[in-house]
């Protein structure tokens, strides 16, 4: 065994990110580390890479103990890591990024696809390109061990092949590889063994026989990941609803990419904007929430509204709600209490206050009401928002955004990082909001998730937004290819 992890545990607050995790990776072996969101995969890799200090347990490379919490020691021991959120300094060029890590720039060049220019600032690269730079860096830093945390999550087609080939080549060169992915097919393609984690525990280990993986491996892995075989059979919430005709539209006019677009959103429907992160979604969100829009028109059977200029701020505060992707940073103030965070949208929209004055008692009872309805835990409005679990944070943001119902809801990857019961809840609530008369837009990186919760899907690619297709007529493969290589207009 080159890499040995023995009884490693780490808790964050009450959450057990890793509990008594042990496994080893031999010379030239590829171990796929699988598990649902929050299972503890990244934490485990970070412990090996020296970024997270375990509460107990040891890591050995070539039999030698690795110092905890020392990334330099890990690198000296021959461990190269590709992080889930990358480890690139946006100010440095691609070449400088390699030079910083003391990696041979010429060799790195050979491993990268041709269209990536070594002189570009990594911050100016597209996110998929950054992911490839991250992978090559990890690969060239790995003398003994290579840790890959979802290195293909943003890639498609030949780029995925290049990464998988790279893993294979590294293994052939005797390097011990740990490969974290949510794409089972990729894991089965390159792994010699599979380790499945759930809630911090290793719950399943599988070895490929000479004949390859047994037929029901996939099913077995999913069962281990989710601990509930039934859930695996039908991961989607059954689509019980009918997409009815819209009862009105909201049109937002403004620039998308180079062109001025008029985006029409149906009240009562869920539109998912699919696409790989970094294709202009940020700009689209700014447009949808009115920050950069030229005009917003609202047409319903009863009323019509036409807004331009500074009245748009009003429109946003009173009629638009956003569930952002980064809950900690964009969702609320981590240092303020849960209760305060729950009433922020009310206050911004002029509710709960009389001429600006607010009653703390009213705030508290309002917060308690939301906590109750949405079963947010802990059910205490005075805890720090930042101390909530990801799922509870998301519940709080949804609670705030959907009560009272906005005219327009923009939710960015609303099910991201949630366990499947929470995912269910999110889908249900989006649906309910639409049914109750809200135009819902989700910005979604995961195509399957988009297909699962939307009425229609549009794709974003390199700043352009495609026409929306009803989910009923959507072709998964066609959409997939649109997200990675665009479409002909």
């Amino acid at each position, binding site marked *: 065994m080159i890499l040995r992890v023995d009884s490693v545990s780490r808790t964050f607050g009450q959450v057990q990110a890793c509990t008594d995790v042990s496994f080893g990776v031999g010379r030239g072996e590829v171990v796929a580390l699988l598990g649902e969101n929050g299972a503890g995969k990244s934490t485990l890799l970070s412990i090996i890479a020296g970024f997270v200090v375990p509460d107990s347990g040891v890591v050995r490379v070539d039999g030698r103990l690795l110092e905890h919490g020392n990334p330099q020691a890990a690198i000296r021991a021959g461990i190269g890591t590709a992080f889930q959120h990358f480890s690139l300094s946006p100010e440095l060029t691609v070449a400088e990024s390699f030079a910083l890590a003391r990696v041979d720039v010429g060799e790195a060049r050979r491993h990268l696809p041709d269209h990536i220019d070594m002189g570009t600032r990594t911050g100016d690269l597209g996110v998929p390109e950054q992911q490839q730079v991250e992978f090559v860096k990890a690969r060239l830093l790995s003398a003994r061990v290579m840790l890959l945390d979802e290195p293909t999550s943003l890639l498609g087609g030949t780029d995925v092949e290049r990464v998988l080939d790279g893993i294979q080549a590294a293994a052939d060169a005797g390097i011990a590889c740990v490969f974290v992915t949510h794409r089972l097919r990729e894991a089965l393609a390159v792994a010699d063994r599979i380790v499945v984690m759930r809630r911090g525990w290793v719950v399943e280990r599988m070895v490929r026989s000479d004949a390859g993986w047994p037929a029901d491996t996939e099913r077995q892995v999913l069962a281990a990941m989710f601990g509930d075989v039934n859930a695996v059979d039908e991961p989607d919430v059954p689509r019980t609803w009918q997409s009815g005709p819209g009862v009105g539209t909201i049109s937002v006019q403004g620039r998308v990419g180079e062109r001025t677009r008029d985006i029409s959103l149906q009240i009562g429907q869920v539109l998912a904007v699919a696409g790989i992160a970094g294709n202009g979604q940020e700009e689209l969100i700014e447009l949808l929430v009115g920050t950069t829009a030229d005009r917003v028109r609202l047409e319903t059977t009863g009323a019509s509204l036409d807004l331009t200029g500074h009245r748009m701020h009003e429109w946003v*505060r009173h009629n638009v709600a956003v569930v952002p992707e980064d809950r900690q940073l*964009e969702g609320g*103030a981590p240092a*303020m209490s849960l209760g305060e965070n729950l009433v*922020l*949208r009310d*206050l911004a929209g002029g509710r709960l*206050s009389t001429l600006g004055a607010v*009653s703390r008692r009213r705030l508290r009872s309002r917060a308690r009401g939301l906590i109750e309805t949405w079963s947010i835990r802990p059910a205490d409005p005075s805890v720090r928002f930042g101390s909530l679990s990801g799922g509870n944070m998301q519940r709080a943001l949804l609670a705030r955004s959907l009560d009272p119902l906005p005219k327009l809801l923009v939710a960015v990857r609303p099910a991201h990082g949630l366990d499947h019961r929470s995912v269910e809840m999110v889908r249900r609530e989006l649906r309910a909001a639409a049914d109750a008369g809200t135009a819902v837009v989700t910005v979604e990186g995961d195509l399957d998730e988009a297909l699962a919760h939307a009425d229609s899907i549009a794709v974003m690619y390199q700043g352009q937004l495609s026409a929306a297709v009803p989910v009923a007529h959507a072709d998964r493969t066609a959409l997939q290819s649109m997200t990675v290589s665009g479409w002909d207009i």
Partner: protein
Amino acid sequence: MGHLTRDIAVPLLAVLGAALIGVSLLAATGHDPLAVGEAFGRRVLLRGAGIEESAVAMGPLLIAALAAWIAARVGLWNIGIDGQVIAGAIAAATLAPFLDTWPRESMWVAVTVVAIVAGALWALLPALLRAHAGINEIVTTIMMTYVAFSLGSWLVEGPLRDEALVTPVTVAIDVGRRLPRVFDTRIHLGVAAAVVIVLLTAAAARWTSPGILSRLVGESAPAAHRLGLPVERYVVVAFLVSGGVAALAGVAEVLATRGAVQGDWRPVLTLPAFAALFLARQNVLALLPAAFLLGMLAYASTVLPRATDLAPDFFPMLEGVLLILLAVERWQRPERAQAPAERSI
């Protein structure tokens, strides 16, 4: 340790630590720490005048610290408080002589309002540059202070000068028309007003919706933006309010303490304001005891040098040591941090 215990214990420990360092320095340089301590006790703590003058000294410090707090509320560092104080003082001293015939109460109100506007205007450029061009306010506020010093001097030596006097000073307000004193002490209405303003600010921060939302702007501007809050406007308004509040320290100089602006007057309130702010752990109500403590230190630095043959610089040095200890107090094993990343500048 609970939050409250910690909020009280930490500043006390820091003060104690600074005092210990002070005592060791005194001993090391051949002074008698006991004699200095005795003089401090007798002149500052036990004399009525000591407490009274400490309270007087607290006034401008409290105002300046509040100005720093307001800017910090939306995530900004107002390092230009001194310039805004000058702006307020000059505005007050310009207007007051023209209102000679007004009842004094109306004169106070008019002068205060105009001075607040002047202080806010002095903060306007840094505020706009920060909000709309993303330019760091530390650079601009520092520069604005130097410009205020020069411009103020010119006004006092030139157009505003009291021709009857040889020394450059603006026309003084009669003692009878200054702010009245509280219970025949030297503590004037301005000090009481400063305390009230701090209480009002604390109330506004807790019981008004802009007060609560401004905290969101400071803690997490992207989140505020996502809620449709006009973040830039919050930043600009808070900075203007900060400048306007700072100007009140200048108003006190003109309406209470001296009755005029002296040509060579250079307020040095910015650094002590931040000392108070951090001593109070950025809690607005805690600014009251923090400013009072620093007021005592300021008073001590004026009377103890003579009594103890210490260089007056000894006391600002202690204040600096206190700040350093307060900074280091926030020590935590970085690799185990649970707190969110510190707010960026």
